């Protein structure tokens, strides 16, 4: 059973980390985030299902279209729910992004239907059996893709010019603007990227979880917990926290009970914040005096 738990835990954990990285990206750029990241996961799964399963598009094209749609979704959220409150010190963006998520869920329910639907995948047909336990190849693919993507994002930020520009905006938006960086566009790009990552998680998870309009909420919440535990300002922290959280969940569910899983997971968030208020590897926000 331990092997099974480890595989499942790593798969889910890497997805939490991927979605959580989305929180980090927007936070790092604009000190705001999309509180409905979880709904972006759902939108990704739903659109991919609509194109690939319902309409029968070939998988690569369907995936590409899904990613494009997600980028648009993210940009839309930024434009409507975040930008109006960007400079104000009010946390209004927190609640307006929640509102967007709620609306997205209802729209999905109206268009997609109220039932959960299956997303067939070749990688969830035959399980691999290892000593009395089993897992699907998809569960092995997920952490590989997840970690790979997270590494790519890191490379993007550190090695490419545009990525460094985005980091500059986080550091000091005014100065970045004066240096010729288009700040609003940079923030919008960060939201688009963050939604895209969430959508990828949705597509990867769809064969395992089934597609439903309500599938995103709990993932978004747990990914947020992961982002907080790892430290909103630290990408490596988040990746580690994601894997750790996924493994912890699997182990607690496996050896204790599923009820305990949620309690332990969220209690961990509170414990970590009591000991390290800005996350394991995060930095406190500078207080301007």
């Amino acid at each position, binding site marked *: 059973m331990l092997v*099974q738990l480890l595989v499942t835990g790593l798969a889910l954990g890497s997805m939490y980390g991927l979605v959580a990285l989305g929180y980090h990206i927007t936070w790092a750029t604009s000190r705001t985030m999309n509180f409905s990241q979880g709904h972006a996961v759902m939108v990704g799964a739903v659109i991919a299902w609509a194109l690939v399963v319902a309409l029968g598009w070939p998988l690569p094209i369907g995936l590409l279209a899904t990613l494009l749609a997600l980028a648009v979704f993210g940009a839309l959220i930024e434009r409507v729910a975040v930008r109006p409150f960007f400079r104000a010190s009010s946390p209004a963006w927190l609640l307006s992004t929640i509102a967007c998520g709620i609306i997205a869920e209802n729209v999905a329910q109206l268009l997609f239907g109220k*039932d959960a*639907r299956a997303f067939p995948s070749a990688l969830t047909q035959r399980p691999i059996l290892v000593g009395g336990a*089993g897992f699907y190849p998809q569960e092995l693919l997920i952490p590989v893709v997840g970690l790979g993507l997270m590494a790519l994002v890191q490379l993007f930020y550190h090695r490419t010019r545009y990525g460094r520009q985005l980091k500059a905006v986080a550091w000091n938006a005014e100065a970045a603007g004066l240096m010729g960086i288009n700040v609003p566009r940079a923030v919008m790009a960060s939201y688009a990227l963050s939604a895209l990552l969430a959508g990828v998680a949705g597509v990867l998870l769809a064969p*395992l979880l*089934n597609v*439903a309009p*309500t599938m995103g909420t709990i993932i978004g919440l747990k990914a947020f917990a992961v982002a907080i535990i790892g430290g909103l300002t630290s990408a490596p922290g988040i990746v580690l926290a994601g894997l750790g959280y996924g493994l912890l969940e699997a182990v607690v569910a*496996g050896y204790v009970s599923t009820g305990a899983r949620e309690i332990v997971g969220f209690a961990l968030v509170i414990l970590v914040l009591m000991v390290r208020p800005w996350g394991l590897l995060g930095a406190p926000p500078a207080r301007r005096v």
Partner: protein
Amino acid sequence: MRRSASLLLTLSLLVAAATGAVAQSKEPVKIGLSAAVSGGSAASGEAIKRGLEIAIGEINAKGGVLGGRPLQLVVRDDEGQPAKGVTIARELVEREKVAAVFGGLHTPVALAQVAVWHELKTPYMGAWAAGTNITRNGQSPNYVFRVSANDDDADKFLTRYATEVLRKGKPGLLLENTSWGQSNEAGLTKWLGEKGIRAVGIEKFNWGDPDMSPQLLRLKNAGADHVVLVANAPEGAQVVKSRAKIGWEIPMVSHWGISGGRFAELTGELSDGVAFLQTYSFFGKQNERGEQVLKALKEKYGVKGPEDVIAPVGTANAYDGLHLVALAIEQAGSTDGAKVRDALEGLKAEYKGLIKTYRRPFTAEQHDALTDADYIMVVWRAGKIVPLAAK
């Protein structure tokens, strides 16, 4: 002066009575529905609504009730929230003045509403929520009725099937972590106990859980020779998939939750052989009512065939329930809540319904029209529901 005044008074009273009677004869009799129409369980609310609408359509086509009054459905979304359910209950009775109210999937909502029906003296007909305490609520006179499964009877039925038909003696229980699961844990433990059996393990899972392998592995390690499942379709599908994932070929006996919600689509051939309880099935040979209802489903809602019927038990239960309520209203001769209640408890007419033929369906002690004698055991085969011969 006095005489003409009293003449005038009498005349106006007569006119008022006459217009009142005329108005009454066209005034619809309202029937309320309190169910989850949005959110994760919305399919169940939709199914119940369809059953009610089809039955109402049939009755109105034949002239309605109480001498020409049409039935009218008033739907309210309780969002699966007990407090919302209570608000709706009061609104339906006090503002909409319904004659009776039908209920939805959520046991906690139904439980919260029990007090209201008794306070406001309005009969309630459950069409899905199977919690034992809904009808067995200790109230007298009891205003809560149900045409649906009752967890206590369902557990008796499942236990009997597992022990007498499957001849298995080491059950592992796998239940959803809700009040429905809780109600069945109590029932299964009781009926297994009557046979001198204890479950080798009792495992729980939450709504939305993707993977039940750990629970199944624990049951496997505890030596279970069959699994008794209490789950709704999405979770039931994940249970079946988890069972395949860990390569455990074990017989599974389930409560009814896995009949709707595209269970077949979600599990494919993995669900073959999973036996479960139904009050009614639209697959296979239908009686006359069944044909009628299927036809109405096709015409009104674009349903293509039995495999397209969402949450069929809701539709079937609600359909029969409404006919029974209409008969009670006729027998009571009014929409007064206490009278309709008494009529339901002492229903004289025989009703050849969809699920069965009802003769005196309710008594003072029994407010569930269906018992384990009425349930059928069915099994999934290649995406279709097939009745099993033995009960």
